């Protein structure tokens, strides 16, 4: 080969490399400053990068705005691991797990009102009763507690410690209900999962002390979710053979059981218009809360989803988030909760983990 040929080859390949360039457009959403009549979407963000943010989509699904916390607070970063949002009055409480803080914002303008940090250590979930709010703290190690704060001035009232876990917390029937058991894994492959126990703890908000500890039946199932509906607490547990939904009377601690014998490994329980919605094996099921047997077919069979993360049913619409590889923006899909038809889908932020009615 002649030198000149080799030379031109080298340069030609250099040129070739240089023209292969993508030019996707930078899309700026129409800014909005009134977040009424819509859905607030939490994007958990990375574990080590402070990419937590909040998105808003209008109820008619026509208007989407990502990054509404930064946009309304001088581009301030929210932090890493936005675990959950709670709402009370005109405020939204953004529970920030890794930063050990709660950002309180106006729920309609998202302007920051206050920051709470007192006694927080890996905060997880939040619930409200009267003039107080309750925040679980769980570092999956030594910290397993619920903190009580005064809503009017955000002062810390007290902590209640638990033996093994402090995860989801809801208000139901005037009481504070805490998930006090969860999961642990075997230390050898295939790392089988086991329940740490089967307890749900009920706190009387007038005395801020434990009134009842409910021990659910030991079926080997792990507590997967806890929600509140019409004054009762509902607990979803599941194992590799079946799933169970318990309806708990929070005044007495008594419960009724619905056994889903044909659907193992159910996860993510929500209730809307007297219907249960849950996920199992990439399928979404719905059933009447009064039904006694598991549904025979799925409402939606999910395909092409890498990591199903956020899930909720709000006013007849089913919202699910695919967190993908947890480094790219999540893709949210919205379905009709009655017939399972896909209504729309859009991209939000990193690791979308929740949907809340505003």
């Amino acid at each position, binding site marked *: 080969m002649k030198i000149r040929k*080799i030379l031109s080859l*080298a340069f030609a*390949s250099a040129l070739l490399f240089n023209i292969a360039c*993508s030019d996707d457009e*930078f899309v700026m959403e129409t800014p909005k400053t009134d977040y009424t009549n819509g859905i607030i979407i939490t994007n958990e963000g990375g574990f080590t990068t402070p990419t937590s943010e909040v998105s808003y989509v209008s109820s008619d699904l026509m208007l989407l705005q990502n990054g509404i916390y930064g946009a309304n607070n001088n581009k301030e970063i929210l932090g890493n691991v936005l675990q959950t949002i709670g709402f009370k009055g005109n405020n939204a409480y953004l529970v920030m797990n890794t930063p050990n803080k709660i950002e309180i914002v106006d729920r309609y303008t998202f302007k920051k009102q206050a920051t709470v940090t007192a006694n927080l250590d890996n905060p997880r979930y939040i619930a409200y009763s009267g003039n107080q709010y309750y925040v679980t703290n769980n570092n999956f190690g030594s910290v397993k507690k619920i903190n009580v704060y005064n809503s009017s001035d955000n002062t810390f009232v007290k902590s209640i410690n638990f033996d093994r876990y402090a995860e989801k917390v809801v208000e139901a029937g005037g009481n504070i209900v805490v998930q006090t058991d969860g999961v642990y*894994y075997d230390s050898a*492959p295939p*790392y089988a999962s086991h329940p740490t126990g089967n307890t749900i703890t009920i706190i009387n908000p007038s005395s801020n002390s434990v009134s009842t500890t409910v021990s659910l039946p030991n079926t080997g199932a792990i507590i997967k979710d806890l929600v509140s509906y019409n004054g009762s607490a509902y607990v979803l547990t599941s194992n590799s053979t079946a799933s169970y939904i318990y309806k708990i009377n929070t005044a007495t601690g008594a419960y009724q059981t619905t056994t889903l014998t044909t659907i193992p490994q159910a996860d993510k329980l929500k209730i809307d218009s007297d219907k249960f919605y849950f996920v199992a094996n990439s399928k979404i099921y719905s059933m009447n809360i009064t039904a006694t047997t598991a549904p025979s077919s799925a409402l939606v069979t999910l395909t092409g989803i890498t990591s199903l993360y956020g899930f909720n049913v709000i006013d007849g619409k089913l919202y699910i988030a695919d967190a993908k590889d*947890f480094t790219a923006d999540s893709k949210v899909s919205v379905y009709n909760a009655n017939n399972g038809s896909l209504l729309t889908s859009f991209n939000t932020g*990193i690791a979308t983990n929740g949907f809340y009615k505003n």
Partner: protein
Amino acid sequence: MDIKKSLVLLFSSYGCFLFGQETAIDTVYVFDNQMSKVKLFHKVSTIRPEDAQKNSTNLSEILRFQSQVYIKENGRGAVSSPSFRGTTAQQTAFVWNGININSQFLGQGDVNNIPSMGFDRLEVKSGSVGVVYGSGAIGGTVHLNNSLEFNKGLQASLFSEAASFGTYNNLVKAAYSDRKFSFKLSGNYSVSKNDYAVEESRNYINRNGEYANTNFNFAAAYKIAPHHQVSWISEFFNGTQHFPVFFDSQTKTKYETQNVRSLLVWDWNTSKLNNVFRAAYTEENFQYFDNISHPKSSGGTGKNYILKNDFNYFLNPKWNLNIIGEFQVNKGEGYISGIKNISRDVGSLAGLLRYFATGDLRFEAGIKKDFVEGYSTPVLLSFSGNLNVAKWYNLNLNAAKNFRYPSFNDLYWQPGGNMELRPETAYQFDLKNQFTVAGVKLMLTPYYIRTTDMITWLPSNMGYYSPINTYKVQSYGLESQIEYEKTYGRHMLRANLGYSYTKSVNLETDKQMRYVPLHKFFGNIDYRYSFLKVYVQGMYNGLTYTDSEEKRSDALQPYFVMNTGISGTFLKKYTIGGKVNNIFNEIYETMAYYPLPKRNYSVYLNINF
């Protein structure tokens, strides 16, 4: 070409190799005996200690401003990882005196916990030398090499620097050598409060960013008999890094690491035969504190016992055979990670055949088979050729197949560790075109790498993360470099400019890999007049995606950072200097949300006794 010429070529930077009247060979002993052979077929960039001192903060800075490597750093001095040619940190090997020192747990080198002042020569090489340096050397290698000199008597030096953000770097070195014996020791202590602020970047303050590193290095060599030399080197590193937090309320964390590396070498050289026997011990200890005021929350200890024999024989003046046998025992024990008393035996046998066809044309073919206990590994292959087409044009070709086997964490982490993982396997090709005209050396190297079975940690349906073999990656691009050096009377000018274009695409999504800039430029220009020296260095980094879907609004914007320094040497012994880093106050990040410092300063003193 006779055998002496071949040998001189082969051992050109090799000291104890003395035969006949060839006393002109520089009497410098380099611990990594393969380096000189690698240089016959690969472009290796050398960063000398005086160049490294321009970026004395840490190894990240040195590589960022003086090589084509992309360094992702979570704030100055914190967790830092490299990327060569669009590959991952695990596909980059850090090689200390010929021994791969990537963490057995993470599979990668922790750049800021590798001493940036303990070496005599830092060498950076793009592309594979997997046959010689083993698993993981897919994208490139960074070599921390030490050397010993003979017949130099007593030498000592002191370097002491004070810099912005409460930063102090100190290095002392002492060496003694006669005709048969050489000894060297160095000690280095670097400490920084590191509390810099970058208001323009979301009011960033590098809270909890302090670090401190101590390093000791001892080396000795003795020529026990004609043709025989025994050499020894040990290094002890101790590092404490606090990890930056974004909010005062956030729990402050820190990381401590203690590493020991020791190497004993026996060299036996005759005119036809050269045998190097090496016994090495490397140890890594690390502790993570999820709260700086609590006891450690996790950690680990890794120990490697290594025996390696490198046999090199000239069959005749044209044919050279090199056989490298290696046996390692890798032991690992985690604390809280569920990794308990792992012991893995790893053996390998490699053969390299070199053919010196003429003085202007040579070839090398290599094959290597690893034997990893309880694990099947592919065969590594390599082929290189080097041709002086004309006085001003040199052509160098490399093709290789190599792989990275999973790290201890990939295999044994609990829960999640996956014993079913296949190694990441790569095929690569590059072609270096080197032009030398009027003292200007221009190198253009297009390359291509295709990697399959990338190991990625993803959430499993059990609720925990687990590594699996996923997508394929295709990387291609161009590395280019211009070198120029000219001495004229009392003037000296030296320039080294590099530009690289890197397209690295996940073949499943067709998107550019995260944290791989398409364009990177770096340049260093030194000028000396008599006792005065000045330098400028600059680095441009193009748009860099931080997510896996090429999202423009989250990408790191392009930046250009420039540093400069001046020094004066008095009485041939005392050098006083000052540096200004980031003179244009560029706001820049190499890792999203972690800006690096704005303009900052340092003054230093260097004494040669």
